[in-house]
C-alpha cells in the first residue's frame, strides 16, 4: 500500500509543482496590475506581514487587466484572427490530407507500412527546420518565384512570404500528419464490401464514395480537424517566421507583450483568455474520442 | 490414516480423522453489490484432484483466485494446513497457479520460465538446474528448453505452464481452465497426462473448468457450482448417477426430466415412491433414499442410456410407455432416439450401435416402447 502511495505521489507532486502551480501563478499575475518595478506587477504577496499582508494582497487583485484587453482592439482582433487562420488552415489541411489518407488506405497492403512511415517521418524532424524550409521557397527571390518567372508565368515576384498565405501554408505543411493519420486509421479499418454493396444497390463509384466512405470516416475527419485546429490557434513559430506585420496571432501577441513590452499582467491575462477559448474545442474533441471508443466497444 | 479397505480406495473425505489440506469456512466474496461467492464451506484433502465445475460467472474462478491470494474473502476464513492464509500475499504462499492464458513470460526461454520461481527462492544454481531438468523430463519438453514461448506449439506451451507451476513443488496446484485453449483431440490426451503427472508428483490439484466431461475424467471429486454456491460436492459417479438436484442432473450429461406428484409406497419395498406424471399414464415407479410427502412436487431424472427401446412391450419392466420416434441422432458409436409420448413429452433413449447401420432396427415414425427399471433413475425435489 505504501509502495502504491509512493508511486502515485511522485508524478503527482511533480505535475502539481510544475504544471498546476505555475498556471495558478499566471492567473494571479493576470489579476494584478502592471507596475514599474521588479517584478513588474503589483501587488506582490508579502508573507512577512502575516494576515495583513495576505489581505492587502487579495484586495489588490482585480480584473483591471482583463478589462484592458477589451478596450484595446488589438487583443480581440488577435483572438479572432487566430481562430480564423486556424480554421482556414484546418480546412486546407483536410482538403490536402484526405486524398493522401484515402490513397494510402487503398494502396496494396504491403505498401501501407512504408507509406505510413513516410507520413510519420517528418513528424520526427525538427518543426523549426520544416518551417524554415518554406522561407527559402516563398521569399521574393525564392525558388517558387524563380520557377514561376523562369516559366514566364509572372513578370514580377509574388509576395507570399510575410503574408497570411505563407502562414496557412506553414500550418498545413507542419500539421498535415495530424490530419492524415486519424483519417487513414478509420479508412483502413473500413470494410471494402460496403462499397461493393453500395454499388450493387445502384450507387455509382463517386456517389458510393460520398455516401459510404466519407460518412464512415467522419470520426477520423473530426479528430484530424481538432488535432490541427487546437495547436494552430496558439501557434507562435509559424506566424513569427512566415507571417508579416499584418499577421495577427495571439501566440505572437503574448510573446511580444512579455518579451518586448515586459507587461507580465497583460501577457498572463492573454494566456488565461486563450486557454478559456481552447477549452471549447478540447472538450468537443474529447467527446468525439469518447464516442468513437464507445462505438468500437 | 485412511481406513484399510480391500480395494485401497482413495477417499480421505470419508475419513473423519483425516485433516483437510484446504478448508473454506463460511467464505463469502462480494464485489460491490455483486456476491460472487455466497457462504461456501468446503474441505479439500491431500493428493486430491479436485474439480470446480460450473458455467461462466458461477464463482469458480473467484474461489480459485482466493486460494492463490489474488482476492481476499469478504467474510469467512480459508485455511491451508490449518493456517489462515488471508494475511499471506500471493508471493509468500505455498500455492502455485497455472493460468488460463498460461501467462508464459514471452521474453524468457522455456528453461528460464520454469526456473523463474526457483530463482526467487534463491536456491543454489545446480539445484535449480537439476529441478528444471526434472520438470522438463516430466513434461517431455527436454528438446524445447532453449526456445521462447512463441517458438513452440499450443500444446507445448500448456506443458511449460504446468512445469513452471509445479517446479516449486507447491502444496497445492491451481489450474484455471488448463485445457481450454487446446483442440478436442489434444485435450483428451492431455487430460490423461495431467492425471499421470498428478499421481507421480503427489501434488494436490484444484482445477477450474466449465467442461463437465473434463471434470468427470480427471477429478477424484467434483464440486458443482451455481451462482456462487456449491450445489453438490461428490465423486464423478455419484454426481452422474445420483445428482442432488435438477440443476446438477441437467448440467452434467444428457438427462430426461419428468415432473409430477410423489406418492410413497413403502409396502412395495424400501424407498419405493410412485410419481404421477401424466393423465392416463401409469405412475413411474422409482426408488429413492430421500423422503417425499404424499402429493409433493418432484422430478424424475433418467439418463437416456438407461432407457431401453424395444419394438413391443417388454414383459418384465417396472416402467414402460409407448411412443413414436420423432428424431434419430446418429453419433457413430451410439444413436439417440427422440421419442414422443402420447402426452406430448419427448423422451430420449440411447442405444449402442453394436451392429452396422444397414441393419438398424428402428426408423422415423416407428411405434416403439420405452422401458426402465425402478432403480434406473432418481427422484429429485427440484
Amino acid at each position: 500500500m505504501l509502495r502504491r502511495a509512493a508511486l502515485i505521489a511522485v508524478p503527482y507532486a511533480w505535475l502539481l509543482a510544475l504544471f498546476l502551480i505555475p498556471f495558478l501563478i499566471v492567473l494571479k499575475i493576470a489579476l494584478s496590475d502592471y507596475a514599474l518595478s521588479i517584478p513588474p506587477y503589483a501587488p506582490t504577496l508579502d508573507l512577512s506581514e502575516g494576515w495583513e499582508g495576505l489581505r492587502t494582497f487579495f484586495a489588490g487583485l482585480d480584473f483591471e487587466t482583463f478589462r484592458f484587453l477589451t478596450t484595446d482592439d488589438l487583443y480581440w482582433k488577435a483572438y479572432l484572427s487566430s481562430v480564423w487562420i486556424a480554421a482556414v488552415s484546418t480546412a486546407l489541411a483536410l482538403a490536402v490530407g484526405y486524398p493522401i489518407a484515402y490513397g494510402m488506405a487503398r494502396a496494396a497492403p504491403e505498401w501501407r507500412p512504408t507509406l505510413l512511415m513516410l507520413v510519420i517521418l517528418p513528424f520526427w524532424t525538427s518543426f523549426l527546420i520544416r518551417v524554415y524550409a518554406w522561407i527559402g521557397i516563398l521569399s521574393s527571390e525564392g525558388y517558387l518565384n524563380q520557377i514561376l518567372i523562369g516559366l514566364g508565368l509572372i513578370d514580377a515576384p509574388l509576395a507570399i512570404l510575410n503574408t497570411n498565405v505563407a502562414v496557412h501554408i506553414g500550418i498545413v505543411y507542419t500539421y498535415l500528419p495530424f490530419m492524415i493519420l486519424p483519417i487513414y486509421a478509420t479508412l483502413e479499418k473500413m470494410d471494402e464490401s460496403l462499397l461493393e454493396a453500395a454499388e450493387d444497390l445502384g450507387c455509382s463509384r463517386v456517389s458510393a464514395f460520398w455516401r459510404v466512405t466519407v460518412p464512415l470516416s467522419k470520426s477520423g475527419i473530426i479528430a484530424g480537424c481538432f488535432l490541427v485546429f487546437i495547436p494552430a490557434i496558439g501557434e507562435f513559430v509559424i506566424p513569427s517566421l512566415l507571417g508579416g506585420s499584418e499577421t495577427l496571432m495571439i501566440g505572437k501577441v503574448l510573446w511580444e507583450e512579455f518579451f518586448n513590452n515586459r507587461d507580465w499582467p497583460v501577457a498572463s491575462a492573454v494566456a488565461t483568455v486563450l486557454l478559456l477559448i481552447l477549452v471549447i474545442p478540447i472538450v468537443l474533441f474529447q467527446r468525439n474520442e469518447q464516442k468513437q471508443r464507445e462505438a468500437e466497444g | 490414516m485412511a481406513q484399510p479397505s480391500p480395494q485401497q480406495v482413495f477417499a480421505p473425505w470419508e475419513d473423519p480423522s483425516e485433516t483437510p489440506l484446504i478448508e473454506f469456512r463460511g467464505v463469502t466474496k462480494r464485489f460491490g453489490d455483486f456476491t460472487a461467492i455466497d457462504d461456501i464451506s468446503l474441505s479439500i484433502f491431500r493428493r486430491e484432484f479436485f474439480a470446480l465445475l460450473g458455467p461462466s460467472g458461477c464463482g469458480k474462478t473467484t474461489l480459485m483466485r482466493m486460494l492463490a491470494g489474488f482476492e481476499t474473502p469478504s467474510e469467512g476464513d480459508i485455511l491451508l494446513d490449518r493456517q489462515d492464509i488471508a494475511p499471506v500475499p500471493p508471493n509468500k504462499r505455498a500455492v502455485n497457479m497455472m493460468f488460463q492464458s498460461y501467462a508464459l513470460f514471452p521474453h524468457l526461454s522455456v528453461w528460464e520460465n520454469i526456473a523463474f520461481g526457483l530463482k526467487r527462492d534463491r536456491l543454489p544454481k545446480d539445484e535449480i538446474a537439476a529441478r528444471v531438468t526434472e520438470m522438463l523430463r516430466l513434461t517431455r519438453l527436454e528438446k524445447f528448453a532453449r526456445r521462447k514461448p512463441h517458438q513452440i506449439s499450443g500444446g507445448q506451451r500448456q506443458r511449460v505452464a504446468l512445469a513452471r507451476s509445479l517446479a516449486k513443488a507447491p502444496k497445492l496446484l491451481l489450474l484455471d481452465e488448463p485445457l481450454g485453449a487446446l483442440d478436442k483431440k489434444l485435450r483428451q490426451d492431455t487430460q490423461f497426462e495431467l492425471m499421470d503427472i498428478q499421481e507421480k508428483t503427489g501434488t494436490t490439484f484444484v482445477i477450474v473448468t466449465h467442461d463437465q466431461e473434463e471434470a468427470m475424467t480427471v477429478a477424484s471429486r467434483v464440486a458443482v457450482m451455481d451462482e456462487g454456491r456449491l450445489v453438490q460436492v461428490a465423486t464423478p459417479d455419484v454426481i452422474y448417477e445420483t445428482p442432488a438436484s435438477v440443476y446438477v442432473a441437467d448440467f452434467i450429461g444428457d438427462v430426461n426430466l419428468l415432473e409430477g406428484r410423489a406418492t410413497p409406497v413403502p409396502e412395495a419395498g424400501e424407498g419405493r415412491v410412485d410419481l404421477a406424471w401424466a393423465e392416463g399414464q401409469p405412475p413411474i415407479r422409482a426408488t429413492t433414499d430421500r423422503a417425499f410427502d404424499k402429493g409433493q412436487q418432484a422430478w424424475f431424472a433418467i439418463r437416456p442410456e438407461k432407457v431401453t427401446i424395444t419394438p413391443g412391450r417388454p414383459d418384465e419392466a417396472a416402467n414402460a410407455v409407448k411412443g413414436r420416434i420423432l428424431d434419430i441422432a446418429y453419433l457413430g458409436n451410439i444413436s439417440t432416439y427422440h421419442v414422443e409420448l402420447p402426452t406430448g413429452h419427448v423422451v430420449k433413449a440411447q442405444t449402442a450401435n453394436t451392429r452396422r447401420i444397414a441393419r438398424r432396427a428402428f426408423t422415423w415414425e416407428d411405434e416403439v416402447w420405452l422401458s426402465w427399471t425402478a432403480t434406473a433413475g432418481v427422484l429429485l425435489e427440484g
Partner: protein
Amino acid sequence: MRRFSWFNATSLTLGFAFLYLPMVILIVYSFNASELVTVWAGFSTRWYGELLRDEAFLDAAWVTLQVAVASSTIATVLGTMAAHVMVRAGRFWGRTLFSGMIYAPLVMPEVITGLSLLLLFINIGLDRGILTIILAHTTFSMCYVSVVVSARLVSFDRALEEAALDLGCSPFEAFRLVTLPIILPAVISGWLLAFTLSLDDLVIASFTAGPSATTLPIKIFSSIRLGVSPEINALSTILIAVVAVGVITASLVSKRSAIRQAEEERAAVRAEG
C-alpha cells in the same frame, strides 16, 4: 479487392512531393557553394566546415544534447510511473485532477506552458539556465511518455504479473523482471519521443532559458529571423539525416523481428501438426 485508381496515385504523388520537396530543396542547397542561398553556384561542403568551426553553434548543440538526455530520461521514469498509476492504481483521491494534468500539457499552447514555468522559476528565485530548461522539458514530455506507455500497458496481460507474484516475486520484482522487459519497446519509444521533443523545442526553452544557456533551436531561430543562411541549411541537413537514419533503422529492425517472430510461430504450429 481494393481498387487503386489514378486519382489515388496522383494524390499520393502530389501529397508526398508536398511533404518532402521542401526538405529535399533544403538538403540540396546546403551543398551550394554560394553565399546567396537561393542561387546555385556549384557543389561545395564549405558550409559544413564553417558550421563545425562556429563555436556558438557547437556550444548550443552541447547544451541541447545535455538538456535532451537529462529531461527525456527523467521524463521516461516519471512518465512510466504515471502510466502505471493511470492504468493500474484504480481509484484514489484526486484521480481526475491527475489525469487532467497528464493530458492538459498535450494540448496546452507552448507559449502558455513556457510563460507559466518562467513565472514559477522567477517566483521561487530559481536562476534560469540548463536546470530550468530540463525541469520544463521533463514536465511536458513526461506526459507524452505516459500516453505512449499507458497505451502499451492497457493491452498488457495482467496474468503475467500475477504469475510472477504467484512464483514468489515481490510487486517490485514482478515489475522489474516481467512487466518492464515486456513493455520496454514502448518505454524506449517514449524516451525517443521525449528526446526529439526536447531537441525540437523552441518556445518553452526560450521562456525558461536564461542568458547563460542557449539551445540549438533558440540559436537557429535567432539566425533565421535575419534571413536564410547556408549554415542553417547545413545544420538542418545534419539533423534531418540523423532523424531519418534513426527512424528508418528502428522501423526496419522492428519489422524484421516481427517477421521472424511470425515465421517461428508458423514453424511451431507446423511442427505440432
